[in-house]
């Protein structure tokens, strides 16, 4: 297949948010119910992580709070275990959606021996599961974007209909890795979805000091569609992601999605966001929290309050049980500190 880039017809669109008050089909209600439970689980796990961090049982906490709708709905559009998923340190809700167990998330938070991602070597929320085609990520920003392009290249060489997705934040779009990954994927029309979760902040630096133009517009420069969606509206995210995944799978090349999300808490437990975010800004972020919004929507669609309350208590119990299981796991052996530096042939 020729690497020739035709005069690319590139759409740049800001997708309209779906109307929260509009009618939902039975299928949509069913999807939203499932996603709501995963989002609740991600939120419950996230909250417990911060508690064990405050208790001194974990050293470092990273959050996905406020990103749950964008992550869960986008991951739901993938074929888990078939498509390659390159995550970043906020991707906990996406990881849960594709099948990562909360027990394993907590084993990683607590740096336990049986942490299957890294055996306690790597910081929390750095997922790695071979059966889910979820390769281990580093802590560097944007370095996994070329890897997603590489997995797309591999799919082409191997003749597989695999799609790869890279999840990353708005800060990552300033890096050279972003540019080189999108350049490569655009030239070779690789089956990749670049999914940017724009929460408006790279730790403290606002997005206007990271990107001179709206992020979704950058797609045009790489010959790929760039779309912006309300990342707190799971159906809007799902539709945008489905379109991008379908496009990639049929061989039409990569897409860039910018999902506008909110960061509800600090960057990490080592960060004090009140230094750089005003109470008004924090309140505005809180008002966009995707969980209460989806709850209202489900109620409006006729889901019973009692059913929602039951899920909420079940999910909390599930997260607490997962934490207890992880806490009972043994700590790693110091003698294994140099294990796995080199792979065995």
């Amino acid at each position, binding site marked *: *297949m*020729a*690497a020739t880039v035709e005069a690319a017809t590139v759409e740049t669109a800001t997708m309209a948010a779906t109307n929260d008050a509009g009618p939902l089909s039975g299928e949509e209600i069913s999807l939203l119910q499932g996603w709501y439970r995963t989002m609740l689980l991600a939120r419950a796990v996230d909250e417990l992580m911060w508690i064990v961090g405050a208790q001194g049982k974990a050293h470092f906490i990273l959050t996905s709070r406020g990103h749950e709708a964008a992550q869960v709905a986008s991951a739901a559009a993938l074929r888990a275990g078939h498509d*390659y998923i*390159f995550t970043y340190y906020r991707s906990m809700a996406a990881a849960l959606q594709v099948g990562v167990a909360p027990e394993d998330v907590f084993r990683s938070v607590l740096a336990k021996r049986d*942490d*299957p*991602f*890294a*055996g306690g*070597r*790597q910081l929390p929320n*750095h997922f*790695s599961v*071979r059966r889910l*085609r979820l*390769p*281990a990520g*580093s802590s*560097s920003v944007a*370095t*996994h*974007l*070329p*890897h*997603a*392009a*590489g*997995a*797309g*290249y*591999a*799919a*082409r*060489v*191997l003749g597989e209909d*695999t799609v*790869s997705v890279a999840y990353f934040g708005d800060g990552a779009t300033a890096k*050279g*890795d972003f*540019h*080189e*990954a999108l*350049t*490569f994927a655009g*030239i*070779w029309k690789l089956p990749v979805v670049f999914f940017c979760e724009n929460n408006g902040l790279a730790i403290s630096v606002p997005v206007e000091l990271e990107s001179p133009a709206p992020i979704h517009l950058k797609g045009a420069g790489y010959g790929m569609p760039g779309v912006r969606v309300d990342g707190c509206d799971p159906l809007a995210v799902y539709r945008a992601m489905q379109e991008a995944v379908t496009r990639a799978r049929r061989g039409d090349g990569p897409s860039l999605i910018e999902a506008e999300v909110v960061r509800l808490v600090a960057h990490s437990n080592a960060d004090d966001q009140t230094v750089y975010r005003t109470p008004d800004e924090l309140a505005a972020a809180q008002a966009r929290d995707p969980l209460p919004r989806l709850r209202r929507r489900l109620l409006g669609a006729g889901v019973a309050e009692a059913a929602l309350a039951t899920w909420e208590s079940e999910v909390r119990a599930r997260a607490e049980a997962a934490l207890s299981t992880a806490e009972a796991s043994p700590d790693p052996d110091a003698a294994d500190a*140099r*294990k*796995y*530096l*080199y*792979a*065995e*042939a």
Partner: protein
Amino acid sequence: MPQLTLVEAVNLALKEEMTRDPRVVVLGQDVGRKGGVFGVTRGLRREFGELRVLDAPIAEIGIAGVAIGAALAGLRPVAEFQFADYIHPAFDQIANEAATISYRSNGVWQCPVVFRAPCGAGVHGGLYHSQSVEAYYGHVPGLTVIVPSGPAEAKGLLKRAIRDPNPVVFFEHKGSYRREREEVPEGETLLPIGQARIDRQGDDVSAITYGIGVHWARQAAAALEADGVSVEILDLRTVHPFDREAVARSVQKTNRALIVHEANKTLGVGAEIAAFLAEELFDSLDAPVGRVAARDCHVPYAEAQERAIIPNAAQVVEAIRRTMAY
């Protein structure tokens, strides 16, 4: 057996491995249509197609990063950087990403990429076509760094590197590309990673070296025969992790050691080997460990200046004489 140059030997290694395993791919700038600026990949695109011999944009982060992602998804990529001087933007991908994947995934994910680049001076390439950068990568656990000394070595080591589950950084000295022909076995002759090789047996002094240093050491050893000095040449082949046992065996026999490399002296591979000898073989040494290396400078374009910076066989002779006279 065909008589091949180092360029032809690397080309044959790539061709054989790509024929054997459809997962082996080559990517880099100019590797396809042009066949590489030194001709290393000549003919491969015609045989294996433009996807498996991919002309990459001149973007080293992308070349390295795409190779890493492709390896994670099942390929065996060989990423070419046009000159070692231009591999630096990819350092983050190689050192922070490729080198750590096995470790930070509990051994679950592997990163079988070979990062290849021509290195070395002596061709009047100036600051940006002359560098020897192996020591940078030698500081990184998880990486394997190989610098072959000749055609047969290059072919056997590259074939093994392509099949290795770990990321390998592979530097070929461009001054050795067409300097000599030698018999290179076709087919399944693989050379081991992490094992040094005695290039020449000797009794009086060990010249511990790799890459083009082996060439200088051979010239020096031949010149010193007239003086009755018997030089053993140890070709490290893999400079990281280097073969401590082989170094120890040779020095325990000769009791004198000289380390030779083209890269800058300070904090170079030679510094590590000298430290190893001081720590582990102090009692075996009859003379201080010597080093012949570049004079801690960028490589200038002007011929006289370049010669003033880069080591040569005469310096090896001189250094061995000093060691023997101690």
